[in-house]
């Protein structure tokens, strides 16, 4: 994969211009909110799109994996590290965030692989409807297990990042927002490098393209699919952790709407396309923030859903996706 500068320059230019316009329209605070939300949606949308790309399954449980991720991060922080309030020492804070995030991602990755092994792999050759129904079942199992472990009411998430803000371009942004956006971008770049440059990434791409041919070339299909689920769940886990930090409290049914929005983002970007999913996440976040700014907070879900319907009607392949159309 050679670096095609001209191929990258144009979308990058469009993106930068779009962001500047948004910034001028929304102002610093709302722009920062939209970027943060977008980063979280993008992390989840990547999981939807990767899983869909490789096994053509809409993983309904993915939003709930995100939710479990935020509870796992909360549990690690409070029970293992005994954290309740802000950590002021910068070095400690960075170290803690890194450890908690790594642990959450690995833990969620293992859970994701386990779900794939138990609920999806046995049904790989079954009619399409079967894995969709188990996915719904898994989603309800995850929600209700968390609800019975942590209770059905919202749970406080330890706010370990101090609420300090810094001044920029006449506005003030919390350090937390900056951290979330940067972390998401780092993870996404790492994912792109992994998928594009490594042996396992190549196995994933070939499996997505033609499973039988990949198998004939010596790719271990089961292992490749398991790794895809691991990565998807790990990214959702990271998203869940920063969601907790950002929102301050988490609830067992949090994954439902966030999952729906992230799925919309994945469809908007073109399902199966990782770059598209990331872009879609930010677009959906901006739609939502616009709804809030214009005073229609309670309608934001309706707005996002309308976007989904409109995309499906007018451009079912999404912004960057290949043509899917009606196939089965």
């Amino acid at each position, binding site marked *: 994969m050679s670096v095609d500068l001209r191929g990258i320059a144009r979308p990058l230019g469009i993106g930068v211009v779009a962001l500047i316009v948004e910034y001028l329209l929304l102002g610093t605070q709302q722009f920062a909110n939209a970027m943060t939300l977008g980063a979280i949606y993008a992390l989840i949308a990547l999981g939807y799109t990767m899983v869909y790309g490789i096994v053509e399954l809409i993983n309904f449980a993915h939003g709930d994996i995100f939710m479990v991720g935020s509870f796992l991060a909360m549990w690690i922080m409070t029970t293992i590290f005994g954290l309740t309030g802000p950590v002021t020492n910068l070095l400690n804070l960075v170290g803690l965030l890194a450890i908690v995030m790594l642990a959450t991602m690995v833990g969620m990755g293992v859970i994701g692989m386990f779900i794939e092994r138990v609920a999806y792999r046995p049904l790989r050759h079954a009619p399409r409807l079967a894995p969709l129904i188990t996915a719904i079942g898994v989603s*309800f*199992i995850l929600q209700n297990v968390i609800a019975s472990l942590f209770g059905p009411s919202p749970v406080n998430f330890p706010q370990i990042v101090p609420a300090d803000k810094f001044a920029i371009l006449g506005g003030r942004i919390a350090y937390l927002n900056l951290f979330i956006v940067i972390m998401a971008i780092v993870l996404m770049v790492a994912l792109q490098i992994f998928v594009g440059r490594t042996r396992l990434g190549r196995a994933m791409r070939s499996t997505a393209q033609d499973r039988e041919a990949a198998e004939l070339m010596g790719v271990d299909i089961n292992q490749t699919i398991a790794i895809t689920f691991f990565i998807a769940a790990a990214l959702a886990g990271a998203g869940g952790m920063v969601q907790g930090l950002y929102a301050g409290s988490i609830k067992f049914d949090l994954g439902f709407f966030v999952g729906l929005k992230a799925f919309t983002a994945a469809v908007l970007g073109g399902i199966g396309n990782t770059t598209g999913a990331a872009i879609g996440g930010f677009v959906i976040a901006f739609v939502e923030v616009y709804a809030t700014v214009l005073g229609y907070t309670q309608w934001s879900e309706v707005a996002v859903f309308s976007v989904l319907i409109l995309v499906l009607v007018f451009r079912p392949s999404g912004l960057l996706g290949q043509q899917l159309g009606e196939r089965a």
Partner: protein
Amino acid sequence: MTAVSLPQAPSAWQRFRSTSRSHRSITILVGWALIAVILPVIVMIPPLSTFQPESLWIDGFANAGVFILLAMGLNVVVGLAGLLDLGYAAFFAIGSYVYAFGASPFTATQIPFWPMLLVGAVIAATLGLLLGAPTLRLRGDYLAIVTLGFGEIVPAIFLNASDLTKGTNGIGGIYKPELFGFKFTLENPVPYYVTMIGILAVTMILLYRLQASRLGRAWMAIREDELAAASSGINTITTKLLAFALGASTAGLAGVFATSKLTFVGPGQFGFQVSFTVLAMVVLGGMGNIWGVATGAFVIYTIQAVVLKELNQFFQALHVPILQSIDFVQYQYLLYGVALVAMMLLRPEGLFPSSRRREELHAASDEVGEVPPPTEALDQ
């Protein structure tokens, strides 16, 4: 049986089976009439009579009928046409609100109950068409997610458009049905029970006839192999759209009935749990088998309305601290989730399968490693 045995006279059971097959509509009518008589008698027998008084049982059966109706409607979409609809409660909500708008002091109108049954069904079907038209052209998974979103958005609209729907407070004081001057009351559940049995019998006859018709065969053809169905001259989009609209209309009907019985409607009644419960009923009962899903719906409703509560009381009485702290009602959705996964893995055809569906589901899993099953071959 030896090879040379003479043809025996058919046993009474065989004669009954063949008569009931050739006169299916009459059999269904007789069957529901028997059920209508037997159920109230059964609950007078201990231990059932000790759980709750008979009027509560009858009331519960009428409510169970709503879920049987929903399950039979969803069965058309999921079981016959093979489309996953995860927002089925939205159409239930639409039917309910249609009746609330048509017959409540809030809108100061009083349209009689019986025509409203049709109106609710037609409006729900129309919205089903509007939602299905853009999405049914796409692959099946999109329909699942779009209906999932639709199922959340419809209650959200009823909640947020508070000028029209009184928002979270809901619309109360909805008028009860009336038949030739006879007024239905909250105290006496029997008229509701009889009405429900009537609706169920008629719906079931229609569905069985539909299933055996050209349209029903087209649905099953699409479910089993969409490409082959299209090649055989079936207009797949229209056919799927009809399944979707028919399922929606049944839910609308159920909504009108449920609202007339509850005399209240609010956006909280139509959460994802309702869609999920109905899906569990269809899957457990046996996708594609109408009597099967009706039985599944009845069993699940009874479990959630009676058995779980009785279990709670039973374990409360045992004075074992750990068992006392378990609230079984709280775990019902966890149980449904486990049941859905287990059923799909172990017995995908459901507890009361339709023979065709069973063969289809098992044929697919037998082919592992050999010829790729049709659905997969299409995707590549």
